């Protein structure tokens, strides 16, 4: 069985929008490391969100519902590209941006 190590971890920078900064102690950017079982398989957004939840309990449920669906007014960008699926790969060193999409008046 493959063993994760500090060397085999994807490091991802996550930009946090203001509605979620109560969870990050006010930080607008945090870094998470996700263990990699195989270097050629980058983690998914799902894994990034799990890592965020591990550090900031309660954050994930505010942006992903209990069925694993992104909430209607949340968008996620990976490396500047809108992700349409939580299975989207997040290469090590990339940036995830959580956007609380503009809506309503």
């Amino acid at each position, binding site marked *: 069985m493959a063993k994760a190590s500090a060397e085999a971890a994807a490091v991802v920078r996550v930009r946090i*929008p203001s*509605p*979620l900064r109560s969870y990050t102690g006010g930080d607008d950017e945090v870094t998470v490391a996700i263990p990699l079982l195989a270097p050629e398989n980058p983690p998914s957004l799902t894994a990034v969100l799990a890592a965020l939840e591990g550090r900031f*309990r*309660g954050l994930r*449920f*505010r*942006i*992903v*519902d*209990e*069925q*694993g*669906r992104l*909430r209607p*007014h*949340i968008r996620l960008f990976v490396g500047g590209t809108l992700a349409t699926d939580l299975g989207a790969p997040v290469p090590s060193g990339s940036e995830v941006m959580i956007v*609380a*999409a503009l*809506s*309503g008046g």
Partner: protein
Amino acid sequence: MPRARTRPAATPARPVTLYVATRKGLWTLTSDPARRGFKLAGPHFLGHIVHHVVLDPRDGRTLLAAARTGHLGPTVFRSSDRGRRWVEASQPPAFKSGSGRAVDHTFWLTPGHASSPGVWYAGTSPQGLFRSDDGGATWAGVDGFNEHPQRKAWCSGDQDGTPDGAKLHSIIVDPRDPAHIYMGMSSGGVFESSDAGASWRPLNKGIRADFLPEPAPEYGHDPHCLRFAGGNPDRLYQQNHCGIYRLDRPGEVWIEIGTGMPKSVGSVGFPMVAHPREADTLWVFPMDGTDVWPRVAPNGKPAAYRSLDGGRTWRRQDEGFPASQAWWTVKRQAMTVDAREPAGVYFGTTSGEVWGSRDEGRTWRCLARHLPHIYAVEAA
């Protein structure tokens, strides 16, 4: 057979605190002992959509707040010191993974029975029933309802199209029996459990459902608000989409009691409150339910209506209100009573005003204005 009743005593002359939940946060209004002056404080959770805030009557200090924001999912905040510090629930109400359903917001909070400290119930949109056994820190679905094979039929499907989302509300626990619970659903109707939520049955006989093809269905009705009569939990009052009703248990058939309301006002509204001690006394706050359902004060002239005889007759109470051109209304959790003698009656409006009466509705004063759209007012 009707069970024994106990008549609650009036609370002594101490300050009253109103918890005012709004579309943009939570405020409090605290009175002097005579209830002449009220001081506004807040906001807490500025910018959060707060649907309900309730003080635990069992300890007098635990507060729960049901909140979400425009962007973020729903949660519950808890305070154990009457609102000075708040902590988020570690496991807010959420449907089971794989059920396909997601809580949009927690709409209603009810403390459990006096003999069950730490127990709370929550009703959500879409319709779901949840229970906490640890003072609101963690919540689990009440499977007897959420997983009931008839649940989808009772709720007219998973998304029944009610404006602002379908609601499970008015969870009320029999003060004589923690296992005996009623609740209402908009839409769905009134349901009763005698086994702490393990099983449920519809309780809607006699209620009109004019908006459905079948005018007298077993379920599918639209109760707006359900209350126990003061001092008599064998009597229920209901403000429904189709009128005002009373049910005296162990009877099974609701009696329509809104027919005595003036025709120009009608018997449609969201809230109703019962006197804390007098079983025949209740208040409603009518709204315009004609045509396209404007849901504002009928003719722009707001008024409460009080009955002193269990709904046989009604008297208008509007002294102090604007006489015309006032187009607000009152949501279903936004009207409440205190336990003082005489009872205080309070409500919050869709236009952000809080009104109160310390003489059981004879005269009204505006206690606060310029707040956001008010969803709920609770007195403690």
